[in-house]
């Protein structure tokens, strides 16, 4: 099944999709990466982060600073962001992982904001609010961007799946279900939580570095955004399905394509935002575990209606 989907996805650019459609597909894949990364930490390990923008932004800035300070291709940022973000998330995890539940959520939320304002203030290093702009993006055609992010997504998917099915995955779930019980069973919860955070952060950072290359422009308000990055990430996973392999992908499709579709309904004007908000409310009320997580329920509900 995954291979079939991968084959279809790999063949997608050959079907002559318009550049507009490719842009949306690339965004979907990119957000799936962030969503899957978040899912590892939030869905499996139960640590709900409200600050994934911090990792996304650090990744994006790694690529950007490589370009502005060392004058090398920002594509190096995609691999190089991994050690940078790993170090960063190790440090951050050391602080925030002491906390649990809503307190962890709030601490991560604050960490994203701290990173945003720090990036704004370190003008000499990050360019401050003026941001970083790449003079000329690598390709006009979107095909290569697509394959690169698809590769990242495939790696992410496989990694998350392998991890979730390994012993590590069981430790993660044990921590999510009851951290004290897990601790008393001899699981080193701090170690495994830090591990989950680092892996999750690195994958998000890689997506951030890709964003720098793809969009060609970043500033602190764009990549460290609370609503547009951190919260969108949570919504992608929650709408798609927490702790499921395909949930984040489905979530990304909904959050990007549906949002774009509703937005471009002519005549709706600014009301598209209300529609989208209401849709989110409905999804979460009826399908609290997301579309993939509550798929049986969704099928049942639809069947009931037909009968």
């Amino acid at each position, binding site marked *: 099944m995954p291979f079939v989907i991968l084959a279809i996805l790999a063949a997608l650019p050959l079907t002559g999709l*318009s*550049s*507009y459609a490719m*842009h*949306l597909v690339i*965004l979907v894949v990119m957000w799936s990466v962030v969503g899957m990364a978040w899912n590892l930490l939030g869905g499996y390990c139960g640590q709900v982060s409200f600050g994934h923008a911090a990792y996304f932004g650090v990744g994006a800035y790694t690529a950007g600073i490589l370009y502005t300070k060392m004058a090398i291709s920002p594509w190096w940022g995609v691999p190089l962001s991994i050690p940078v973000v790993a170090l960063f998330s190790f440090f951050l995890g050391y602080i925030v992982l002491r906390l649990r539940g809503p307190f962890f959520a709030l601490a991560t939320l604050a960490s994203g904001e701290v990173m945003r*304002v720090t990036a*704004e203030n370190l*003008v000499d290093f990050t360019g*401050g*609010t*003026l*941001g970083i*702009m790449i*003079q000329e*993006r690598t390709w*006009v055609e979107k095909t290569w961007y697509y394959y690169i992010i698809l590769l990242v997504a495939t790696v992410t998917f496989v990694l998350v799946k392998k991890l979730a099915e390994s012993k590590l995955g069981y430790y993660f779930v044990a921590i999510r279900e009851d951290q004290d019980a897990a601790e008393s069973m001899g699981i080193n919860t701090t170690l495994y939580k830090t591990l989950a955070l680092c892996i999750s952060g690195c994958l998000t950072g890689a997506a951030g570095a890709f964003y720098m290359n793809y*969009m*060609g*422009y970043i*500033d602190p*308000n*764009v990549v460290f955004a609370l609503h*547009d990055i951190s919260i969108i990430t949570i919504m992608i996973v929650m709408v798609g399905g927490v702790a499921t392999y395909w949930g984040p992908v489905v979530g990304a499709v909904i959050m990007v394509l549906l949002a*774009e579709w*509703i*937005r*471009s*309904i*002519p*005549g*709706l*004007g*600014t009301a*598209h*935002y209300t*529609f989208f908000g*209401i*849709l989110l409310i*409905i*999804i979460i009320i*009826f399908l609290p575990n997301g579309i993939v997580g509550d798929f049986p329920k969704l099928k049942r*509900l*639809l069947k*009931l*209606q037909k009968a």
Partner: protein
Amino acid sequence: MKRLSFAVVFIFVLSIFAAPVLAANTFELVIPLPLTGKQAKFGEMMKRSYEMAAEEVNARGGIKKKKLILAFEDSGAKPETARAIVERLIDVKKQPIIVGEYTSACAKAVAAVAEERKTPYLIVASADDEITQQNYKYVFRQNQVNDHYADALVSFFRDVVKPRTIAILYESSAFGTSGAEAMAKDAAKLGVRVVMKEKYEAGSVDFRPLLSKVKAARPDVVYMVSYVMDASLLMKQIKELRVDAKLFAGGAAGFAIPEFIENAKDAAEYVVSATLWTEQLKYPGAGEYAEKYKARYGAYPSYHGASAYSAIFVVKNALERAKSWTPDAIRDSLKATNLMTAFGPIRFENREGYRNQNFMDTLAIQVQSGRFETIWPLNHASKRYIYPIPTWRQRR
């Protein structure tokens, strides 16, 4: 579940009915704008101005006898969304020219796409210098760049105020930062010492700590670069703390919109600001546009609106002169633009490292008896400037 399916059906029906029926003899221009979020106010003002211009164009027979139909898409000031809109316009709608956007972040995203896809893009109100410094061939900008926003103000300083010290306060954004940098450079040229240069987070509630520091530093001029309401909060709190200076000056944006006077009231009196346009300018159509806008929406527009209004005429002019309505032909005719508009004369030049940039006179305005008056340069002035200004104590 019933409710869910109802909602879905409802949206479907809406989307079907809302699809516009297009006649062959029309030219549709879709404009990306921020209509939600923090920048929505400017998006709205520009939307109204575009619409007013389109009405006038159509009343006079449209563009080459084609009726101009405008549509707007909300980018919410998100670069990815702005890019999505423009990719669709170029790719699916085959629109040969792009106009619009407001924030510099979005304009950068759009400009990069326009250049790659070889479609001309006319920037209306994004001020970030970088955009036209990229040597983009297809990107045109009709508003002045941030670096030059304060030109008139600086010459006012030089000729009238002759300050020895200046304090620069600016908001933490691309606009604020580049405005402050430009002023620091100008100050160095004039031999004015910068005693303070500090930024603040836009939307702050309390500026008093910052202002007490300004008060202690006793600068001759306090120059502030702020968006919208920060400007009036700053002035209100300056009044309250009785910070006295020879002149309070603003760098366009928040200091040059009607809300500034409305909100800051007597605290706004005598404040001088840079601006790109006022309704008192003697450009053809400027006054009429402003009055019409005021009659319709209850307040005068700021330069953002005027620029949007004139952009439609620039597009009309370019389309009429273009050999064909292909992106390249339109690009060439845009490049050759030499048009007088309500916003001022528009010509796209390559100089000072900028490409396809319209350089226009900037102005200085002053609040006098609760109204904006154009005071500098003198040939555009509607009233004589008031200087020196009274201290806060004397004003009671």
